[in-house]
């Protein structure tokens, strides 16, 4: 079995932002040389998400609005305190909780060297505490 991993970065520009990484994942699959298997997409952060949806700006706005509605900014979250491990205040509980709703990884089959997706499926790296310089991992696993 073959395993190919790439670590990638991106710069988000807004506090909540859906960033289309579909082409990046497709190109990685082609580069990997894996013909049949799976490709995993994983964020390296806990205040981001990875999700799949139709690639339309109105849906992107609706998803962002839904996350803000489901996890409001002003609630008495416990995660609003000094974080000794960072040396700064942990005041981003909504970002963590929105990430928990979305999840941090997705996968797609690889067939005949290509990523298998629905025609309207778009892969998003979702920034939930931006702007930040972010890292994510792609892994192609198979033959």
């Amino acid at each position, binding site marked *: 079995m073959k395993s190919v991993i790439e670590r990638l970065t991106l*710069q*988000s*520009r*807004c*506090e909540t932002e859906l960033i289309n990484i579909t082409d990046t994942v497709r190109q990685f699959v082609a580069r990997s040389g894996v013909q049949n298997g799976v490709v995993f997409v994983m964020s390296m952060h806990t205040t981001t998400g990875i999700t799949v949806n139709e690639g339309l700006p109105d849906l992107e706005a609706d998803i962002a609005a839904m996350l803000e509605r489901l996890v409001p*900014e*002003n609630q008495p979250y416990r995660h*609003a*305190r*000094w974080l000794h*491990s*960072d*040396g*700064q*205040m942990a*005041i*981003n509980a909504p970002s963590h909780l929105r990430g928990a709703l979305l999840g941090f990884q997705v996968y797609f089959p690889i067939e005949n060297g290509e990523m298998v997706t629905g025609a309207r499926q778009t892969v998003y790296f979702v920034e939930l505490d*931006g*702007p*930040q*310089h972010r890292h994510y991992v792609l892994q192609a696993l198979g033959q």
Partner: protein
Amino acid sequence: MITELIEADPTLAHSVREVFGLLFPPQPLQTFLLELDAAGVDCAVLLPLDCTSAHGCRVVTNEQVAALVSQHPRFIGFASADPNLPDAVPTLRAAVRDLGLCGLHLDPALQRFQLNSRDRAYPLYEAACDLDIPVLVDCGMSWAPLGQTALAHPLALEQVIQDLPGLRLIIAGFAWPWFNEALLLALKHQNVYLDTSIVYSGTPADALRHVLASQIGLSVLERNLPQQVLFGSDYPRADIRRSVRGLRSLGLSPALEAAVLGGNALAVLPALRPALSAANPLAEPHIEAAQ
């Protein structure tokens, strides 16, 4: 902390972690600029810190701040000088004259000096008066692991204020937990300013609401200090976006909110005006202090 500074200065990572106590990974300068955009902040005041005598390091140098200011018109740079070193005053004068820095940043808890020391602190205050620059003092709780908060009590500044009426003095974070003492100094002296970088528990909205609304009372600020409260976030201890939102959530009158978010800073720091014009010529001023 900014990645480019860490990469260019191998000693900086150690001092940021071990002395300043910031363990969160550095971010590229572009990210910081985008953070300002996302927060709606036009100009940021950059604060270096010289802890040479206390800890053998500088947590960002005057030269590094000056370099950032020269690259980006939305930055304003303050200077740092170590009060315990004999060359403190010449260092400050050179930073203002040669590097174009336009304020003095003091952190008594971390720099380990007495705020009312005639030998160590007064020469810097007098130089600041002579140079016509404001002095920002980190008062109250120091989150730095090596900071000694007892050195940062705002009442130690009372004699200084009386002796040097021309000094423009900014007390950071309302000197929490000694906000009543900081408040009395500002109530009594028009050349004392208080910034809103209050960080102790909860979100910035929580902390500001507790201290400014519940404890002090917004009417006290509206009536007495409409020109003496400045916005500050204590970045990188708290993010700038949520600090701005916290300030805006207080329910200040529109006039006071606008003053806190920029107008008052322009009065205490005239050097902001050209930076603000360059950064955003049409906008209402909105200014941030960052370390």
